[in-house]
């Protein structure tokens, strides 16, 4: 049997230094966004203006690597033209693909820029081959990023029933909710990943030292409280501690990262085409560390799948940069559900 094609390592670039770092440490592909609400990491100080995007694309292409542009929020009737202008710019700058969630915007891109390669964003919430094939037949989508809800057996079934390449999340912050189907942040703050490109946005966050300990609030809503000496965390609202029937615990999800390193041989065997590292909001140092480990792991797998073993040093490196310094296999491992 012919060996499976090497899994493409897709790394986050929240800035030009992060982009260069990712490429220098072995990313096959980087993904990034414009400095506005057209992408789902619309945070102050992140992302690319046009000159930096040009420079980033030149840097990647000179080294034979690819650049994907995330245009993965949902345009509103009032700002539609901002999103189509972003699509036009992406085509003009020569990005290798755009990652999109909105069907109307995909129709625009397919019609106006037929040569522009389209990827279906995780924000498109396509969890079955029926949904993925809709985007393929309608707009010629070539790759889909799966929401973090399917077990590996379910991912394998999707791959066997679609001509669309499948990309999965391999590492990083874990959305426990179906991406594109979560209005928790909108409920608390009025700003959502779907429309404003931000979850639990910083301008709504308050850190307050109180007699009970450090408290974190989102628009006044208490998300967590930390005893002195306890490691504090950003108040992402699904990762707070709440009270349910008199019991206080992480009722939705612990602050933890997804880490699929030990599943890598299985991910490759079932035909996953690309593996995504989350973290455009993270520093270049994070990007360097994570990219290096995943590059080594993928190369090691490629060199001899039967001999592949997760090196303890890889795990140690990844745990250092994991949220809450712990990790999970998420939905890929059925008992997590």
């Amino acid at each position: 049997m012919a060996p499976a094609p090497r899994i493409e390592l897709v790394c986050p670039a929240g800035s030009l230094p992060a982009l260069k770092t990712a490429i220098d440490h072995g990313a096959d592909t980087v993904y990034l966004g414009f400095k506005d609400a057209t992408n789902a990491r619309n945070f102050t100080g992140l992302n690319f203006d046009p000159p930096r995007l040009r420079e980033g694309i030149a840097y990647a292409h000179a080294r034979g690597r690819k650049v994907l542009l995330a245009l993965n929020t949902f345009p509103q009737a009032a700002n539609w033209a901002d999103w189509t202008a972003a699509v036009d710019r992406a085509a003009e700058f020569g990005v290798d693909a755009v990652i999109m969630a909105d069907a109307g915007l995909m129709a625009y891109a397919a019609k106006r820029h037929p040569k522009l390669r389209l990827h279906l964003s995780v924000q498109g919430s396509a969890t079955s081959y029926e949904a993925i094939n809709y985007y393929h037949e309608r707009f010629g989508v070539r790759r889909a990023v799966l929401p973090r809800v399917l077990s590996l057996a379910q991912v394998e079934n999707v791959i066997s029933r679609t001509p669309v390449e499948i990309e999965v999340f391999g590492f990083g912050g874990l959305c426990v909710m179906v991406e594109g189907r979560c209005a928790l942040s909108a409920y608390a703050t009025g700003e959502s990943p779907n429309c404003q490109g931000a979850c639990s946005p910083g301008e709504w966050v308050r850190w307050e030292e109180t007699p009970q300990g450090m408290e974190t609030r989102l628009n006044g809503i208490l998300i967590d409280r930390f005893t002195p000496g306890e490691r504090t965390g950003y108040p992402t609202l699904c990762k707070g501690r709440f009270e349910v029937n008199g019991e206080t615990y992480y009722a939705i999800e612990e602050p933890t990262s997804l880490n699929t390193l030990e599943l890598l041989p299985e991910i490759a065997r079932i035909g996953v085409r690309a593996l995504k590292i989350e973290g455009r909001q993270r520093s270049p140092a994070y990007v360097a560390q994570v990219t290096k480990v995943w590059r080594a792991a993928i190369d090691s797998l490629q060199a001899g799948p039967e001999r592949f073993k997760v090196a303890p040093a890889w795990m140690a490196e990844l745990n250092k940069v994991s949220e809450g310094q712990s990790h999970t296999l998420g939905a890929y491992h059925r008992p997590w559900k």
Partner: protein
Amino acid sequence: MKLALGPLLYYWPRQETLAFYNRIATSPVDTVYLGETVCSRRHELRLDDWIGLACDLAAAGKEVVLATQSLIESESDLKTLRQITGQGDFRVEANDMGAVRLLEANQVADWVAGPTLNVFNPQTLELLMAAGARRWVAAPEISGADLAAVRAGLAAPIETEVYAYGRLPLAFSARCFTARHFNLQKDACEFRCLSVEDGIVLRTREGEPFLTLNGIQTQSARVHNLLADLPGLAGRAEVLRVSPQGAHTLDILTLFRAALDAKLTPVAALEASRDYMPEAPCNGFWHGRPGVEQYVAA
């Protein structure tokens, strides 16, 4: 303005569910959405049972729509989806793009675009209309102004339904938070949802009701209630959705009907509804604000 009863988002014992819809048959509602949209493990009523209810309600003069599951994961989920999209007796509410593909393939030309399809602009809505959608249920997070802008951008109008009453369905997950609360795995959840007719309230550590755990769905704790906003809904919606709750659903429907028929002022209707709500009201989303807020125009 038509009044619709949304799909039952909770999991009630079979006899209670049947008795509930028996009462709905004589309620002042025009349209009833039926089917399991949240969790494929819930089976007190099978698809055949839902279709049986659909026949009864249709015979009672209600428009009946079969709603599809919002989060599709397995081949067995797809099998049910194919059965719903393949039957021709009742309209279908499509709640993911897989359902849209199947309806389009079956050349069904009269379906409902459900609230989880993420329609935020007229371009996307027109694609769905070209595929056969004849009614659009707006996502609850869309404001009245944004909804009006979507409608204004359409070449031809579409009947629009607004989520007007009920705890807000805010998120779906692969994980079951009810099972997690009871330290159970989803695959062995013991169907604990059956024991809580309105889900389980999640409070902040200050005791403030914040969210509701409903299996794999997370809802608001507060009750989204647009009774006082009825004047602003005129011209923006043709159908109002009330979401079923454990107690007083009929009382709520009666209040909406009375307010729509101008037998009660909108503000009086809101005040009367306070006795029937499991938690305080909110309406922020409709006003373009955080959904948790109860906004009163100055």
